[in-house]
């Protein structure tokens, strides 16, 4: 396939071009006079037949092309319709089915580039004609190309071990694929591991999650690397190389059995360091396991707290206590590389930092909590063993839950975080059930679309919870009446009755929204995908390719793509696993033949191109005629950078030869 950059005039018979102008219903025909464009095309060089038709992508539309290929002996086809992203493959395939090499096809986009974006009809006509002329001019210089096949590595890497990553990993492992599950934190489980109950069924979160965590741990097809981060990704769909940083936990993972003797014997007799897993509401020791069902069930040492690291000396009772000799203070960070055919990103989210809305008093008033903190308080495995107690040990008699904190707010995040209404209802129910407190929900709109969700809302209404519609203005401890003394007062305009209200409560819960991780931009660069302004990873198509990304072989699962609840995360994880399986199981990938190649006879070996290649596809090699640059076709993505850089024009690119590009420009310019 390399080096076939000639034109139709030289490799075989003269070009015979067929041009097809698509109406796309009224999408194109509403603005462009398709008939006159076809009429215009009849007079373009080498055009044998030109037609317009209502829907070129329909079966009859494609048959039109195929009949003409046979009847008029067409050897070039131009379709003027939508974006090549939509139907290039459709028409290439139609050509191939009629016996024409699919790369003798060229598409002119007169929908996205013309009819949808041009105001005046005659301007649209002119532009459509110019684009058709460009395509006709160019297609005459196309050559027959072959797609190349490369084998796919059968393993899969899943990045992020929350419920999405867990579900995707298990699905693929059950299908017989070897999965590397890479988790940044010391344990998998993600946010779901912190919840007590899940909405709307009030299933115990741990009861449904931890069996899946154990399955991951015990699955023969899953390699679980916790406390590890991906630091580099090379390669392409089917053949990625992923470098993973294994952070030192100062405990030999293979030896540790999770007996916690070391934690017991630590020279710190009392737990005195903030426990991140409990949202800093509890304490832990420098050597710890995040929570009892942590997976892998392995302890780790925090070197910023352990005396062995901070003071340089310690009795090291932990090491003494360990019968398995698992403690290793000299453990170093190491980089490991794995190869895989597909990657699933399931890196999740972070919750909104409530301090960014100072008028809500988070961190100012002890009794203002975030929703995630309340999750830990209601959790039987949490710092209060599930008892809802304020920091002073008392039980709240009244609780206000403020919705939309960091969501639906032009000052922070304009989007709806989708899960807060439902988890707020769940928390309201749990608070009422456990404490009998009066619970007030402050909401803008109740958003409960989902199976059993609205019914759950109804249940809460019947339970006697208070619902006040209005965005909370302020949480304050400034009492204006005796009953407000010693309480937090929530000031809000109740928009249902149209009056400002002051509601005194013992406890305020801020229902924080979901945000992308701070390093989302770094991560998306590493994996060659894109993300929205807010940092959510972008799917290839919002409707038709919701778990694919701009990079083939990289798929998305869970909240890293946008706020989602658990059922949606799991559903998407299953979809991502299926897409990854489809790629890996196929066994090969077909590479677009738009690769660049270097003519060794013309290359002078100047090496300008070598450092330019973003995919490291160019190497210098010793040949009979001295050192020349050589492109590894399998690594080339067809970006064209080297082609532009090559000072002596020794590099050319399939589908983008100089001749084709200049003809295209000529085509545009000569008819406008």
């Amino acid at each position, binding site marked *: 396939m390399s080096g076939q950059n000639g034109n139709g005039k030289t490799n075989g018979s003269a070009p015979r071009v067929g041009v097809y102008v698509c109406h796309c219903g009224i999408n194109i025909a509403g603005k462009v006079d398709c008939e006159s464009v076809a009429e215009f095309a009849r007079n373009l060089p080498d055009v044998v037949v030109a037609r317009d038709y209502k829907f070129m992508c329909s079966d009859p539309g494609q048959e039109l092309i195929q009949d003409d290929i046979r009847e008029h002996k067409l050897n070039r086809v131009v379709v003027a319709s939508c974006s090549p992203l939509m139907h290039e493959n459709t028409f290439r395939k139609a050509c191939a089915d009629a016996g024409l090499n699919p790369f003798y096809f060229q598409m002119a986009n007169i929908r996205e580039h013309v009819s949808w974006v041009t105001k005046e009809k005659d301007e649209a006509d002119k532009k459509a004609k110019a684009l058709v002329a460009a395509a006709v001019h160019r297609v005459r210089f196309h050559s027959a190309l072959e797609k190349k096949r490369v084998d796919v590595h059968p393993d899969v890497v899943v990045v992020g071990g929350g419920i999405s990553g867990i579900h995707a990993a298990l699905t693929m492992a059950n299908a017989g694929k070897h999965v590397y599950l890479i988790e940044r934190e010391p344990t998998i489980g993600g946010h779901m591991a912190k919840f007590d109950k899940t909405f709307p069924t009030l299933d115990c979160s741990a009861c449904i999650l931890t069996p899946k965590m154990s399955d991951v741990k015990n699955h023969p097809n899953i390699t679980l690397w916790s406390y590890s981060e991906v630091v580099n990704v090379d390669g392409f769909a089917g053949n990625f190389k992923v470098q993973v940083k294994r952070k030192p936990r100062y405990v030999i993972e293979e030896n540790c059995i999770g007996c916690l003797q070391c934690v017991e014997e630590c020279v710190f007799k009392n737990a005195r360091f903030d426990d991140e897993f409990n949202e800093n509401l509890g304490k832990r020791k420098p050597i710890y396991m995040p929570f009892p069902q942590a997976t892998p069930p392995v302890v780790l040492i925090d070197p910023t707290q352990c005396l062995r690291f901070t003071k340089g000396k310690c009795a090291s009772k932990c090491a003494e206590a360990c019968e398995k000799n698992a403690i290793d203070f000299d453990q170093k960070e190491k980089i490991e590389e794995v190869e895989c055919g597909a990657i699933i990103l399931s890196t999740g989210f972070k919750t909104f930092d409530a301090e960014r809305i100072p008028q809500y008093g988070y961190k100012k008033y002890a009794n203002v909590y975030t929703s995630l903190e309340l999750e830990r308080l209601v959790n039987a495995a949490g710092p209060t063993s599930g008892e809802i107690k304020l920091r002073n040990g008392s039980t709240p008699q009244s609780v206000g839950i403020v919705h939309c904190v960091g969501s639906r707010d032009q000052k922070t995040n304009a989007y709806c975080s989708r899960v807060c209404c439902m988890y707020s209802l769940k928390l309201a129910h749990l608070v009422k059930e456990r404490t009998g407190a009066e619970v007030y929900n402050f909401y803008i709109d109740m958003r409960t679309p989902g199976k059993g969700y609205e019914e759950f809302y109804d249940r809460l209404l019947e339970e006697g919870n208070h619902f006040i519609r209005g965005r909370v203005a302020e949480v304050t401890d400034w009492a204006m009446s005796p009953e407000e003394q010693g309480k937090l007062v929530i000031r809000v305009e109740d928009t249902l009755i149209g009056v400002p209200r002051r509601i005194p409560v013992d406890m305020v819960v801020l229902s924080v929204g979901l945000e992308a991780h701070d390093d989302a931009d770094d991560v998306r660069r590493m994996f060659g995908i894109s993300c929205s302004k807010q940092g959510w990873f972008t799917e290839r198509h919002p409707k038709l390719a919701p778990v694919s990304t701009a990079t083939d072989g990289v798929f998305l699962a869970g909240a890293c793509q946008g706020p989602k609840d658990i059922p949606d995360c799991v559903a998407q994880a299953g979809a991502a696993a299926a897409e990854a399986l489809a790629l890996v199981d196929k066994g090969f990938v077909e590479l677009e033949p738009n690769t660049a190649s270097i003519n060794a006879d013309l290359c002078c070996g100047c090496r300008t191109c070598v450092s330019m290649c973003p995919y490291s596809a160019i190497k210098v090699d010793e040949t009979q005629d001295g*050192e020349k640059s050589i492109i590894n076709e399998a690594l080339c993505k067809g970006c064209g950078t080297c082609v532009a*850089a090559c000072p002596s024009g*020794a590099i050319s690119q399939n589908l983008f030869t100089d001749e084709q590009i200049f003809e295209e420009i000529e085509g545009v310019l000569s008819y406008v």
Partner: protein
Amino acid sequence: MSKPKVGFNWLASCGGCEEAVVDLEEAILDVVEAVDIVFWPCAMDFKKDDVRSMADGEMDVCFVNGAIRTSEEEEMSRLLRKKTKILIAFGSCSHMGGIPGLGNFYSSESILKSSFLESPSTVNAEGVIPKTETKRSEGILTLPAFQETAKSLDQVVEVDYYVPGCPPPVKLLKDAVQAVLENKLPPKGAVLAPDVAQCTDCPRQDTKPEKLEIKEFKRPFEIEIDPKKCLLAQGLMCLGPVTRSGCDSACMKANMPCTGCLGPTSRVKDFGAKAMAGFASIIDSTDEEEIDRLLDSIVDPEGTFYRYSLPKSYMHAICTTMRNGSGKKGA
């Protein structure tokens, strides 16, 4: 069989190309032996009328050097085209416009003004500027017109072959003559030189680093040049990667960077644009400000990248559009 009739002519150029013919040394005797020189005003006494009196196509080959700037040069070009079977553009100026072509950055008016009025060494109290016609008591004196731009030969007449270089290397001239004598010329329009770039046979090629990455551009006088090491790797603006080979690395062997006189390979349509793309590619920085600073450190970029090829470049079309009558424009 009679000997082929050959002519040489000199248009807007420095004379170096004529020198290149003389540089054939004793081989010139073989040439004189093999051909019949019917026109060579630089060396022998020929007049325009000698050409006029020839039958159309009477000459077999004519080598024309120099750009076309005056009406007389244009007239001569057309005349020679008519009288010769094979017209060869000889040297950078007729090939691509050459050094005289750099004048196209300026208007003809400002060139005349600068040369005849503003140049510090000129004494011209009366402010005389050449005109095509000047009335004197003796009658009307005429001079060829100074045209708006300098052109390459093929921008005026159809050219059959090109022998590139400033001046063309002796070997290329010998090969060209040989090809004519043996009737072994390539398809019409070809440049009679290898179609690969300079690095191919540069003696410094082996010292090239794996990746070319430049942190600072330097001019030859600013550093002590390592006589063995790749000049680009030393930060010098060597245009070897963009330039056709064919001179046996003459400048590099003299410890100077290539300036691009042999022009681009057949695949490249705009020498300067390619050169810029090439240099932009090897700048070792991803920081925009640093890149700007590096690019700013290139002295006279338009003169460096388009030294020999301005009239034949896309850039020229842009300059012509932008020029508003005086002063340096474009670039």
